């Protein structure tokens, strides 16, 4: 053959997208709660991000196997160059990455450029979009605040030059932060910062949630809101070959054996159902209508053989192990806690008698009993504001007070919370004492409420429940109307700052739900922002935790151990603390 023709043919073959995904391989999974939509700048719930994670590409991502989580380049050719003062991040994109086909591209192949990332990040600043993630970028980029102010109530001017987010050339993006921050990069790994194409957004302005078009391994094929989502492999996805060397971890070894040398993704089609009730979800998995599933709390004792002396040590029940079902477990990087409204006239404030009241309640709440009863032992008590798996965690710190309702009762006696003739305590000034706990309406909430009832009955304090949906209660809390409520916070990125900011005075009325304002804590927090993760910052974190434990704005809850089951034919599964799904790394070998 003509050498030129040969060369041309080879070149053409090399340019062909590697479509290795097998459309006959269909992965069936379920979401526990309905999704909202798929515009990365508009959705923040866990369920929507399982999908946006697979459609859009952020600049960087996490290595699939490495633990603790390690950032690796995704669409960039290498991790960014960071200036010495920690303020300037420079990213170089890999050329040859294309968006999935869409009518907005008018039949042309659309390449991913630095301008797309600039646009995607700016969308989070746009007042007209109200991104739920704006708190991560507000005031972070040089000139950002001015641009937002110039927009007023209208849309952001995307074409105006912005010093903090600059496109140096087609593939180079430069971000300049207003303050030193060595922990900024993990934020860019979030699916919320995946690249979107401006033409697609503008063509679907009214309904961006239904038209996600990205450079990721999957595209949205079908969507029945609240019911069913179907993803199919993106034929234009860049060639990605799995390459890793396993360590000693048997899970890693299995993954490498299943995937080494293969192009990703292998699974051609993903069918996601929304199943909110636990019984049908569990039964569907057992009936092989789902390939992967969690274990609902009621089925934990049925599915796992739990060692009573060490409840976290489990193995899969015989009947399921025989079918080749795989079990993987992971402590979630989250915290759950109940908080007091620190501005409340009855339970808030920093005088000793109030601290004593809160401390007494914390000492009487049977966390371990609740873990045994509700979680079937599959959780650990929370002891530190930053959970395990997140930079800044201190595994030796014991933050929860010792469970001792008798001493708690005596403590209340000491501070004048006398028991009245009706058997209930009064406030030190003699006025009647009753506390209201806000809660949800699900059956799990009801189970927790029974433990709270027991807590307050032991302390002889009158307890009322205020039930409501999450959004109603959130509104009431913002208006300062709640006395006590429970919350959970999952890591948005693996850095302790994401957790310590929950008690920062300036976040009161926002993510600081307890409205906790302590000058010492705030001072330590601001100092910690300037430090990278390390012993110096850990010392500050310890000091902050001590303040939180002493003042007791929170009653520490528990941290769940997530169990995931997969059928025998699902290969390549490894639970990742920060990646919501591992779908692109899976293979189905029926």
């Amino acid at each position: 053959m003509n050498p030129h023709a040969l060369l041309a043919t080879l070149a053409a073959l090399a340019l062909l997208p590697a479509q290795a995904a097998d459309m006959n391989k269909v992965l069936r999974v379920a979401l526990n709660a309905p999704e909202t939509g798929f515009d990365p700048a508009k959705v923040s719930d866990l369920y929507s991000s399982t999908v946006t994670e697979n459609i859009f590409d952020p600049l960087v991502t996490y290595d699939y196997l490495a633990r603790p989580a390690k950032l690796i380049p995704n669409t960039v050719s290498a991790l960014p160059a960071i200036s010495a003062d920690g303020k300037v991040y420079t990213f170089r994109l890999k050329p040859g990455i294309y968006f999935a086909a869409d009518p907005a591209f008018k039949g042309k192949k659309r390449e991913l450029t630095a301008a797309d990332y600039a646009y995607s990040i700016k969308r989070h600043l746009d007042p007209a979009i109200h991104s739920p993630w704006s708190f991560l970028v507000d005031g972070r980029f040089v000139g950002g605040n001015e641009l937002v102010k110039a927009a007023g109530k209208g849309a952001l001017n995307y074409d105006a030059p912005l010093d903090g987010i600059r496109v140096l050339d087609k593939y180079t993006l430069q971000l300049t932060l207003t303050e030193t921050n060595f922990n900024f990069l993990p934020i860019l790994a979030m699916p919320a910062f995946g690249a979107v194409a401006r033409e697609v957004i503008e063509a679907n302005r009214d309904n961006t949630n239904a038209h996600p078009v990205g450079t990721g391994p999957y595209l949205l094929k079908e969507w029945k809101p609240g019911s069913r989502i179907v993803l199919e492999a993106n034929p234009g996805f860049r060639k990605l070959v799995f390459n890793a060397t396993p360590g000693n971890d048997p899970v890693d070894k299995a993954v490498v054996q299943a995937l080494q040398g293969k192009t990703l993704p292998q699974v051609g089609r993903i069918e996601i159902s929304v199943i909110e009730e636990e019984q049908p979800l569990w039964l569907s998995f057992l009936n092989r209508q789902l390939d992967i599933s969690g274990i609902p709390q009621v089925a934990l004792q049925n599915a796992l053989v739990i060692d009573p002396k060490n409840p976290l040590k489990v193995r899969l029940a015989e009947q399921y192990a025989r079918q080749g079902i795989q079990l993987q477990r992971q402590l979630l990087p989250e915290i759950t806690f109940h908080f007091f409204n620190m501005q409340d006239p009855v339970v808030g404030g920093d005088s000793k008698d109030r601290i004593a009241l809160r401390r007494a309640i914390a000492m009487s709440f049977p966390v371990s009993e609740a873990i045994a009863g509700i979680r079937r032992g599959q959780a650990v008590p929370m002891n530190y504001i930053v959970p395990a798996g997140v930079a800044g965690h201190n595994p030796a710190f014991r933050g929860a007070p010792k469970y001792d309702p008798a001493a708690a009762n005596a403590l209340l006696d000491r501070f004048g919370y006398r028991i009245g003739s009706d058997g209930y305590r009064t406030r030190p000034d003699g006025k009647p004492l009753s506390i209201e706990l806000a809660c949800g309406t699900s059956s799990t909430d009801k189970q927790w409420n029974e433990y709270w009832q027991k807590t307050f009955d032991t302390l002889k304090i009158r307890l009322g429940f205020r039930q409501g949906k999450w959004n109603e209660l959130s509104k009431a809390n913002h208006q300062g109307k709640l006395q006590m409520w429970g919350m959970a916070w999952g890591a948005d990125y693996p850095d302790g700052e994401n957790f310590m900011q929950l008690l920062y005075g300036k976040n009161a009325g926002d993510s600081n739900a307890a409205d906790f304002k302590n000058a010492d804590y705030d001072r330590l927090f601001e100092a910690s922002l300037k430090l990278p993760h390390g012993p110096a910052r850990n010392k500050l974190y310890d000091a902050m935790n001590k303040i939180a434990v002493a003042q007791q704005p929170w009653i520490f809850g528990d941290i769940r151990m997530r169990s995931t089951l997969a059928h025998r034919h699902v290969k390549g599964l490894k639970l990742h603390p920060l990646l919501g799904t591992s779908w692109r790394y899976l293979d189905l070998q029926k």
Partner: protein
Amino acid sequence: MLAYIVRRVWQMVPTLFGVMLLLFVLFNWVGGDPSYILAGKNLSAEALAGIRQQLGLDLPLPQQFLIFVKQVLTLDFGTSWSTQQPVSTLLHSRIGPSLLLTGSILLLGTVLAIGIAALVAYLRGSLTDRLVTLIATCAMSVSALVYIIAGQYWLAFKGGWFPIMGWSDSTLDNLLHYLPLPLLLGVIVGLAPDIRFYRSCFVEELGHDYVRTARAKGLSEPVIMLKHVLRNAMIPVVTSLMMSLPYLMMGAMLLETFFGIPGMGKEVVMAVERSDFPVIKAITIYIALATMLFNLLTDIIYKLIDPRVQLH
């Protein structure tokens, strides 16, 4: 007849207005604030204010109500607050599964119930009659929840005869695989009360003079039942059927939730949970309209079946 129809249609207007007023008061006073859900983790005052403005919640109430009126007149309820999908697309995709489910339950259930009821009415007073009535009464006393939970557990999971849950795009697939179990459970739940009701209709009819006359004339019981009684008893039967048609659109909420059928009933629960006012508005208005129309249709059919009936 035409004048009557026109008058009735005209009378629907105040009712529709009343429904709109009720909805509006309920959800503007009662319903949760959706801006909190949409704001996610970012709960700053500006973000919330912005969302409220976008949803039109910062306008004065009378103005919001006028917008509502316009929406009803054009039957365009805008976009869902939680998913930002146009409400009409959402509902059109949900109606199919609901109608299939509740329609088939109604059909099968009615045929079975009428058949059994006619039989026991024919045998009234006998042991069979008393036994069937007793069984029906007992069956009625068990909560629908128990039937669904137990049915799904034993028939689908333990027995393996049906899929646990699910729904597909192909109607054939649905008819063969996903519909049978929810259909069976839906029929069982409704069968007992229907049998009792139809039986009482038939028994009442059998007590009428013309039946005695027919017997005196020498007609056999089966002929009396089939030719005379059934036709006359049809009126309450038809009424009951027609009255339940609008509720077909609601879907069987419990069944849809447990079996993962993407229908209207499930949509309503989700919408109330998320304070998704546009979706709730739309569904309620549609069903209110359907109810009024079917009422009218029932009265017209009355007149056609029984010329003695006076419409006023």
